[in-house]
């Protein structure tokens, strides 16, 4: 199967600010194509969640152009909303069972796959008879993740998806996400828990102070940067960034040969926000 790449999200010169606060975005631009799982990283207050809310049409930009899947999100047209699903960091449910919630909400999503939902429910140990408000926070989050994946929306957005999940659930989330997403979908994951998602994302975007300071494919990062642990910095050539760790130093150096290394997203993120890596 060949993947037909197309730009799914285009943001040009976005400006946004909350009332009585300083501007969060003044001239933000980015393009994202489908067929990828994109990790949006940033410190607290960097504007990750705000950006996701602008993409979904929950917040309106002051100026600039936002195009998502061919729609202007702020118009909130039914066709746009039927093809985008966001799992929010914080959420509330009505006092009903999963069965009732599905009956009330599934008809709005024409591509919803009930068999897929059942499969994911089973993996997450959720049952239709479960009452949503009697589930733990983590279980409710798992339900939302299952709903999002089964909706088969073209754009799936997860805001801090691993918050509140226990360790086995985090690993299950990664497994299910990778196996559920198709090539015509785009998944945006906003998180500051980079370790939870570094194994599944194939694109990284770093936001700092309302600007996109870094956007790179994981494959390209591997071609440019090499991550390793060394006992001392004495014999390291071309050091880009380092951090102390129990066994010495975690370092980033330029990739010289073709020896692959596991990308340490947390180290990379720290290098970017500490301006050790050239950004945009």
């Amino acid at each position, binding site marked *: 199967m060949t993947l037909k790449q197309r730009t799914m999200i285009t943001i040009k010169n976005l400006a946004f600010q909350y009332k009585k606060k300083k501007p969060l975005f003044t001239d933000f631009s980015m393009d994202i194509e489908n067929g990828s799982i994109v990790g949006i990283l940033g410190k607290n207050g960097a504007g990750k969640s705000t950006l996701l809310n602008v993409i979904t049409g*929950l917040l*309106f930009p002051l100026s600039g152009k936002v195009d998502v899947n061919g729609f202007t999100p702020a118009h*909130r*047209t039914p*066709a746009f*909303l039927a093809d985008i699903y966001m799992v929010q960091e914080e959420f*509330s449910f*009505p006092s009903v069972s999963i069965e009732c919630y599905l009956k009330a909400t599934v008809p*709005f*999503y024409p591509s919803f796959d009930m068999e897929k939902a059942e499969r994911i429910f089973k993996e997450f140990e959720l049952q239709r008879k479960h009452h949503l408000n009697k589930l733990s926070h983590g279980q409710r989050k798992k339900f939302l993740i299952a709903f999002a994946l089964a909706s088969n929306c073209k754009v799936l957005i997860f805001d801090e998806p691993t918050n509140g999940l226990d360790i086995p659930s985090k690993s299950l989330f990664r497994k299910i996400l990778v196996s559920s997403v198709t090539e015509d979908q785009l998944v945006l994951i906003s998180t500051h828990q980079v370790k939870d998602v570094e194994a599944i994302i194939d694109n990284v975007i770093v936001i700092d102070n309302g600007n996109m300071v870094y956007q790179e494919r994981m494959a390209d990062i591997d071609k440019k940067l090499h991550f390793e642990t060394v006992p001392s910095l004495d014999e390291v050539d071309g050091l880009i960034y380092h951090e102390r760790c129990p066994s010495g130093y975690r370092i980033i150096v330029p990739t010289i040969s073709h020896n692959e290394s596991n990308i340490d997203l947390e180290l990379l993120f720290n290098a970017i926000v500490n301006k050790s890596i050239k950004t945009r």
Partner: protein
Amino acid sequence: MITKDRFSLARISLLIKNDLLLNYKQYLLLIAGFAIVLFLYTVNNMSNRWADSPYKAADYRSLFILAFLFFGIFFGSSFPSFSERNTTRTYLLLPASNLEKLLSQFLLRGILGFIVFFLVFYLTMFFARTTALTMEIVIKNNISIDSFSFLDIFTIEKAIEDKLIAVIGMFSGVMYLFTIRLFFKRFAAIKAIVAGVAIVYSINWVMILFSHIFFPETNGYYSYIPNYTVMATLSNMDLFIGWIGFLIGLVSFPLAYYKLKEKQG
């Protein structure tokens, strides 16, 4: 698949179904609570009469007005998701247009709610009378209780203009509560009533100000409004109140649509 871009009756019915499925427990509790309180109040009222002061058909009217106020509060509590930030976001992201969301709430709470209100009110009055008539105190005091009919409530010895103004007033009142709900998050209906009282007071103060400007003989906090007949039995004040009510009803829906369209999560 529903493909119509901005307006689809199928999607409106889905929104109504969605609201009913997610909130049916609250609705049933509300109806039951309303019926029980109304029933107990009415039975108590009926049994506290005497043979020379029977419970007349007109007595149901004040009860109806009181109950209608309750309906107004219910109508003014539309968009239940908007009381919380997270549920507001979920509702705004539900795949339907703003117009469809507005219409679904209007149809569910305004039209369907009004029909249910009428039905519950009628049944409660019927059972309250039936119960009261079997009570020992009612039999002993020989209290006569007129049967309930909606016709009696609306058959008032007043001119057609007055009746029209009353209907416009009721309609604009509930439309005001429905619209202003979108301006507030929590306790919207109560805030809407407080805002309504503030508006009425403001109008009164404006009238006092105008009275002092145009009729310098006006004293203190009184407003002077010359009373004259516009046509037949229609006075200038009737016309003024009617127009205000009509305008509120007229601008309510577009204003509600605008507020919903501009709502951010």
